[in-house]
């Protein structure tokens, strides 16, 4: 007896009908890079997989008015190859570039990364940094949920049975905003993040920080923007001292939320360095002497 059955959906409506068929406990399958590992180790808690990886409406990246729309079944490789995202979502492209090796990047999808709900998901800090909405369909219709609100904790999401993330949208960042993504793993390639961070920022005409978002990943049980750190940066002029202080503040926010754990000695130092490095990159400060290069 097979452990589960398989059905392929060719449209979102068909996928929703299949996922909500009361005769089966169904779950969406996109790239399968997380799901097929899980079913190898644990008995599936579903009876049927509904393959959504070929639904055309879930596979494209497009600009619509002032926002970008990314289909949930777009793979990491397709994110990296999108000129639109390279221009408007550098942090997301950089994160996609650092996911797995080529075989995983060719298979895994952004929607799967969010839906799987791993605390270390590389796709999530950039989406939160871009203020992205996840668009979720079910038999009642569509709803839009901020990505940060979809993720309740490690492997816990606000998704209900029968729900399908169809796409993400985010407003274009203000003109001149730069964004970066940095990650620390146990090796350079094909590594699960120990810590990661997405940062976006822009300077005003007189050289002060007028826009900044700081979103560390794998740092808190529930991912969010570190507004405490953003507030201390807004209105200031970029400097090495400022960014080191911001890194230290990010570290304090993390430890205050998680308490001291076995990994804290490492993570506290690493997050401080990662956040200050990301800020230096966004505001184009040279690594060595801290001079401000335009």
């Amino acid at each position, binding site marked *: 007896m097979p452990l*589960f059955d398989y059905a392929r959906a060719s449209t979102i409506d068909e996928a929703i009908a299949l996922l909500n068929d009361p005769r089966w406990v169904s779950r969406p399958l996109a790239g399968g890079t997380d799901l097929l*590992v899980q079913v190898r180790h644990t008995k599936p808690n579903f009876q049927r997989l509904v393959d959504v990886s070929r639904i055309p409406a879930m596979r494209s990246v497009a600009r619509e008015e002032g926002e970008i729309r990314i289909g949930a079944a777009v793979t990491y490789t397709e994110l990296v190859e999108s000129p639109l995202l390279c221009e408007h979502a550098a942090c997301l492209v950089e994160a996609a570039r650092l996911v797995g090796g*080529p*075989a995983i990047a*060719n298979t895994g999808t952004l929607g799967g990364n969010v839906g799987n709900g791993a605390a270390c998901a590389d796709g999530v800090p950039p989406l939160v940094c871009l203020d992205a909405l996840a668009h979720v369909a079910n038999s009642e219709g569509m709803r839009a949920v901020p990505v940060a609100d979809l993720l309740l904790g490690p492997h816990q999401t606000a998704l209900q049975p029968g729900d399908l993330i169809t796409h993400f949208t985010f407003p274009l960042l203000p003109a001149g905003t730069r964004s970066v993504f940095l990650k620390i793993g146990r090796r350079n390639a094909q590594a699960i993040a120990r810590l990661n961070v997405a940062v976006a920022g822009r300077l005003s005409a007189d050289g002060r920080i007028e826009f900044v978002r700081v979103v560390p990943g794998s740092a808190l049980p529930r991912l969010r923007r570190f507004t405490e750190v953003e507030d201390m940066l807004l209105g200031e002029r970029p400097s090495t001292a400022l960014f080191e202080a911001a890194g230290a503040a990010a570290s304090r926010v993390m430890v205050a939320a998680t308490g001291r754990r076995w990994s804290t000695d490492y993570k506290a130092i690493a997050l401080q360095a990662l956040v200050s490095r990301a800020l230096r990159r966004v505001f184009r400060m040279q690594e060595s002497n801290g001079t401000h290069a335009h």
Partner: protein
Amino acid sequence: MRIEFILNGEAVAVEAPPDITLLDLLRDYLNLTGTKEGCAVGECGACAVIKDGRLVNSCMVLAPQAEGCEIVTIEGVHAADGGPNDLQQHFIEYGAVQCGICIPGMIMAGEALLRQNPHPTRAEIRLALAGNLCRCTGYQQIVDAIEATAKGRRAQP
């Protein structure tokens, strides 16, 4: 269920359960055992095949997801006379093969790279192999073999 796809250039149709991986489909239902199972969780790349022109780990693809796709396995990589092709010949010449379990995946990763990028730098070759583990060679010879193949293919008219 019935799964139909193009395998190494030929149409195949196979009856298989819906809950197996493409790796199991290839090895157990199509008797193509060149594709290896290493870790079975996407870490090692021994099971890599080319699906619609892109490298994938066949242990992470559900067999029914191959429907209608073009799959190339290590059995589909060879010279016109059935012997080793230039990439495989370079693996032999450069001493890139020791125990051999990673080699089908390494060859597929090398082929996938060279089909997309005929001018890879050494850094790009290393990135292309990021998902393929070899515990014998230390990778240098594998990178050398792919680099030599790229050079040889560029020199061809």
